[in-house]
């Protein structure tokens, strides 16, 4: 399956998961799906039959509230049975709203409180260097998450230790829980800020698979960590959810569910 097809299928999966469970964060999941689809299709080394394979690339979803997207990707590529997705957010399920590693093959680490996963990823990258393991570490962070002080603590450290095996992708959908980033806490030019901390930076369209692929394949030929600022659209893929904060919270039911489903079907037919 190519990354476009995977992304579309995952959007359909996530719509079903959130519709069925009445969970939230569909907008956050839709904004990050293209990033995950490109990573899992073309970039990450993994083995679905041996999840703890020591040479695998490590991916940490620091914005744990988009867990539905990662669960769906992992199921689609065969880490576990797709029927598990039907249990998402339900009593007795393994799949909690925020990403959980417990008994979920393919998930490296449980997150949910922001500003944790990205720092854990730094520790993994440091240990891989010490172990002379060539695997790489990818941490996906929300742009709202960069409000957390710990994010900047780890940006400093990864530069200090020249962690060129470490990649942060900022899913920059320009919104956070209470409103537009610019109105809540302006992050300004993240590219310049992070570059000034010694990092390689790239700013791209984070819903464009070609741009994502090119970014992931960029070789900076230096010993520095890389941050990809991926400009995305919150709710990407369903017209009435796009850039609408309401869909950070609301679960699609009734006509909204039908309309979203139809739009995703139309995208499928258009391909």
């Amino acid at each position, binding site marked *: 399956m190519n990354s476009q097809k995977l992304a579309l299928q995952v959007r359909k999966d996530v719509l079903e998961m959130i519709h069925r469970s009445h969970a939230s964060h569909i907008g956050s999941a839709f904004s990050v799906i293209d990033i995950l689809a490109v990573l899992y299709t073309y970039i990450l080394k993994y083995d679905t039959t041996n999840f703890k394979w020591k040479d695998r690339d490590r991916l940490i979803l620091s914005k744990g509230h988009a867990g539905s997207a990662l669960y769906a990707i992992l199921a689609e590529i065969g880490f576990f049975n797709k029927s598990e997705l039907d249990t998402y957010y339900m009593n007795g399920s393994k799949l909690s709203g925020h990403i959980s590693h417990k008994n979920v093959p393919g998930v490296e680490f449980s*997150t949910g409180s922001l500003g944790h996963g990205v720092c854990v990823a730094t520790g993994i990258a440091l*240990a*891989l260097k010490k172990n002379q393991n060539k695997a790489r570490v990818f941490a996906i962070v929300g742009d709202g998450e960069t409000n957390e002080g710990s994010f900047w603590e780890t940006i400093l*450290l990864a530069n200090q230790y020249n962690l060129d095996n470490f990649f942060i992708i900022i899913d920059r959908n320009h919104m956070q829980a209470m409103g537009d980033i610019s109105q809540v806490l302006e992050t300004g030019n993240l590219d310049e800020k992070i570059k000034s901390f010694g990092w390689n930076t790239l700013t791209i369209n984070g819903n464009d698979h070609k741009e994502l692929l090119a970014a992931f394949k960029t070789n900076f030929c230096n010993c520095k960590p890389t941050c990809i600022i991926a400009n995305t659209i919150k709710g990407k893929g369903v017209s009435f959810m796009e850039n609408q904060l309401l869909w950070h919270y609301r679960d699609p039911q009734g006509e909204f569910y039908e309309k979203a489903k139809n739009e995703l079907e139309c995208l499928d037919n258009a391909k």
Partner: protein
Amino acid sequence: MRNNLVEIICQESQKNKDIIFVTADLGFNVLNAFYEKFPDQFINVGIAEQNMTSVAAGLSLEGKKVFTYSIGSFSTLRCLEQIRNDICYHNLDVKIVALAAGFAYGALGMSHHATEDIACMKVLPNMTIFSPCDPIETRAVTRAAIQMKSPCYIRLGRGGEKNIHENNEVELNFVVGKAFPLSLGNDGCIFSTGAITSEAQIAVKELRKKGYHLSLYSFPTIKPLDEDLVKQCALIYDFIIVVEEHQINGGFASSIADVLSNIYEKHATLKRIGMKDQYTSLVGDTNYLRQQYKMDAKEIIRVYMENKI
């Protein structure tokens, strides 16, 4: 105590290259003994305790045995959620070290006093809590923590403490979760943990001069607690004096009280020596503060004399 910790970590790091020592920019003139010998096993993350704690979790996920190191509330309360979510929930091989338990940093002020850390660490599932009273216990708990693969909290005083134990038997026979007698007697009982045990020991010696022979037990492990010993003593004595350099709410004495609440027979009451739901706003050295907040040998003697039959 900090030098004894470093001494043992150095010994073990010789054999175990997976030991990584992470500090949040603390340990000038103390940690050089480690990083000069093991530069590849040492990381200074800068003054960033939250990142230190999550980075330790990441290192441990890749098979490292990690120590984090800072002053009392900096390595515990400042990064409490990182300890909860990243280390304890994932049950990782990380040892959190806090210096300056209680008033060890005396006149530096309230920010540098650790008087709520036991309570906050104790409530976390998977966490083992060590609180050694002297260099001998420090060496023992450090070795024990290294042998364990789960999260541990090691609460230390500072440097230069004298041994309270008369010989290194504790070091040889150390068992996680066991208390050790410093003296035995039938006239009363004291439980103590950490560096403040020196005050309890002075009290026991003074009382002996007056003809009262008390038992004094040191608890180098607070969690798991030596419940058998607590129950045994609770059935022998009318009251037990519990000494800790910490808030009496939620600390060591609270753990003892939890055990007593499960005893149906008539049992001892507790007389708690510790911080009584207040902050340390007075300025002074460790001894001065212990005296002002009624946690010194004199107070222990007073409490004993007031309650004895």
